[in-house]
């Protein structure tokens, strides 16, 4: 029997869904965690939702769960830290290893690894704010604009949910965009802005090898898939499968699977891609704890695949507890 067809209550023992934490994405994480917990409960699974705080470790040690599902977004949740602790405690968990998380969460590192795997990614430069201070911000920014052109993307090197990200269309807006990105972390990524169709590709591996779910096309009303467009129901049109021809669709699936494999990911990932008008697929980033909120793309992909969200997560739990 395939784990995705698991019958309710098939997996014994309590599952702990971790959500919340202290990252900037706490609010999103709480919503993702709640949805995952409810979906799992729908399969008959005993589920406990837990925030990450000083009481967590004693609680896990005193009453070890059968499996942990980390639905923590942002640092700690996606940078491998919490998974390292779970390894330390010897607890099975859903999702990538700490090593793989460290690669995936750091956008510049992820882009390098993706490029080495033969995946195309927009030209970019990654700089800490000290570099701008030491060398003179104006000169560095001039060089960046001259090389990357406008518009360009400014992002924190390590963050999610588009927090701190700005599309810079006018040179005069670049300083503010830099300050905006550095508010979320000490290193910023400046990236060539690729115009095209935005696509999210969910990869699931419940024990039978990674496979891509139907592609979700993202068409935000304002043209930019920023925080507001992500989490305000109604402000973005999601098209499943994405409006792409067969060739581009296949290429997106290939890229997402290649990234999943090259990064050493497991269980679940979501790659964010752009398909330009020539059909070229560009890798932006991969998420090891993708969102499961009411406006997230993974649940849409699961639904489009004709699968039940609870059974899919139960399948991942099964895979985690039997490896």
């Amino acid at each position: 029997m395939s784990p995705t067809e698991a019958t309710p209550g098939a997996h014994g023992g309590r599952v702990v869904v971790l959500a919340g934490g202290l990252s900037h994405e706490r609010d999103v994480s709480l919503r993702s965690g709640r949805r995952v917990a409810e979906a799992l409960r729908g399969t008959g699974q005993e589920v406990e939702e837990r925030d990450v705080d000083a009481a967590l470790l004693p609680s896990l040690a005193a009453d070890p769960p059968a499996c942990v599902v980390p639905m923590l977004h942002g640092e700690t949740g996606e940078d491998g830290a919490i998974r390292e602790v779970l390894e330390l405690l010897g607890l099975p968990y859903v999702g990538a290893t700490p090593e793989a998380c460290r690669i995936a969460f750091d956008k510049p590192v992820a882009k390098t690894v993706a490029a080495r795997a033969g995946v195309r990614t927009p030209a970019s430069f990654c700089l800490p704010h000290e570099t701008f201070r030491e060398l003179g911000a104006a000169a560095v920014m001039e060089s960046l604009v001259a090389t990357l052109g406008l518009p360009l993307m400014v992002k924190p090197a390590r963050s999610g949910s588009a927090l701190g990200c700005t599309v810079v269309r006018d040179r005069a807006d670049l300083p503010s965009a830099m300050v905006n990105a550095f508010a979320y972390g000490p290193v910023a990524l400046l990236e060539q802005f690729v115009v095209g169709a935005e696509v999210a590709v969910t990869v699931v591996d419940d024990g039978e090898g990674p496979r891509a779910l139907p592609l979700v096309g993202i068409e935000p009303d304002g043209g930019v898939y920023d925080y507001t467009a992500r989490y305000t129901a109604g402000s973005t049109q999601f098209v499943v499968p994405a409006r792409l021809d067969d060739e581009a669709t296949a290429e997106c699936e290939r890229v997402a699977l290649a990234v999943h494999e090259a990064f050493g990911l497991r269980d679940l990932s979501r790659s964010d891609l752009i398909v330009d008008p020539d059909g070229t697929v560009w890798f932006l980033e991969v998420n090891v704890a993708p969102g499961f909120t009411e406006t997230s793309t993974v649940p849409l992909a699961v639904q489009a695949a004709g699968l039940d969200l609870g059974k899919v997560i139960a399948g991942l739990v099964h895979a985690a507890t039997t490896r």
Partner: protein
Amino acid sequence: MSEISRSSTRLDGYVDRYAARTQGMTASEIRALFAVASRPEVVSLAGGMPNISGLPLDVVGSAVGDLIAANGPVALQYGSGQGDPTLREQITDVMRLEGIEGHPDDVVVTVGSQQAVDLVTRIFCDPGDVVICEAPSYVGALGVFKAFQCEVVHAEMDAEGLVPDALRQAIVATRAAGKTIKFLYTIPNFHNPAGVTLTPARRQEVLAICREHDILVLEDNPYGLLGFDAEPMRALRADEAEGVIYLGSFSKTFSPGMRVGWALAPHAVREKLVLAQESATLCPPAFSQMAVSAYLTTHDWQGQIKQMREMYRERRDAMIEALDDFMPAACTWNNPHGGFFVWVGLPPGIDAKAMLPRAVTARVAYVPGTAFFADGYGSSYMRLSFCYPTPERIREGVRRLAGVLEQETELRQTFGATGPSHELPRSGYDAPSSDLS
């Protein structure tokens, strides 16, 4: 290319049906960041939650128990749309402390004074009508005005409160533009967020200007009894019965959870307010009203307020001392003589909204000034609340904030970035939700 069946969704099947007034009711990075502020690791100087730790819960519990035992069938039933008559009598006693001689028949009990703002706006304002507000103004009121599609025109304040000349200019300019002014919304005592109090001389001037230009005044006074240094100021309503609608609340002097506030309005307006109240809620909650009434009857509520003032004064002192000790010289702030808030001006070029993620990383939270303006202004200000954390936590929070400011200043100097990082601030939705505001 093969035939593919596509589905398209906005994940909101009602998106084409919402009223125009919902525009701008969107998810916000800033609101998301406030989720972290609720964690104990974070010193939240953002929330305006009254500190009710000193309330005599045994007295309240006993009063509520007696209420149910003696009057349960009434307390648990629908009540009058205008509000409980006994409580309305008691409310006139409360208002007498600020010089108001009101009649219980002219009092309408509401679900917090927030609902009173809503009801007054509902009965007076059509889309496009103008409400004049202080600059800055209470975010909850701005949200109401926006929901009713009013245009907000701000009038400047200084250390003595609303500037009369600015009010006069706002009236003249608005009318010259062919717009209809429906009322002036003002918080004369220990202003939220600015912390300032309208001086007695200015009160008379403001009333005179409004009389001269036939402008109704909506006097919102939740903090009036929470002054630290003197007896309560004389309310605007005390000197002008017909031109002022007065709003009061038990949220700051007793319990916000009771959700009991009120409006004192001229007779004709009161009639409309009652009808509006009935259409909105049928009646304010009978249980809460009777519980508040029992509290006022059985407890030394004025003595309790005196204790609250001392507690808040201690916290105000801690915040001012910490600001003096830690904040950079280029910052400005006022020393409020009551209420909950200090309004901090930031060094040139610092954007409080853009800085908030850095502050949250440093485990301290505040509300960026943009939340308190309807026009996108306010990025170089922040509101700090001293009402809830202990004095020690307040000091630690300000220390952390000073460190954040230092880093942000250095960054701004590096990039030469001045002015707000966000071009179109969505005022009114950048504030914390009700559990923090």
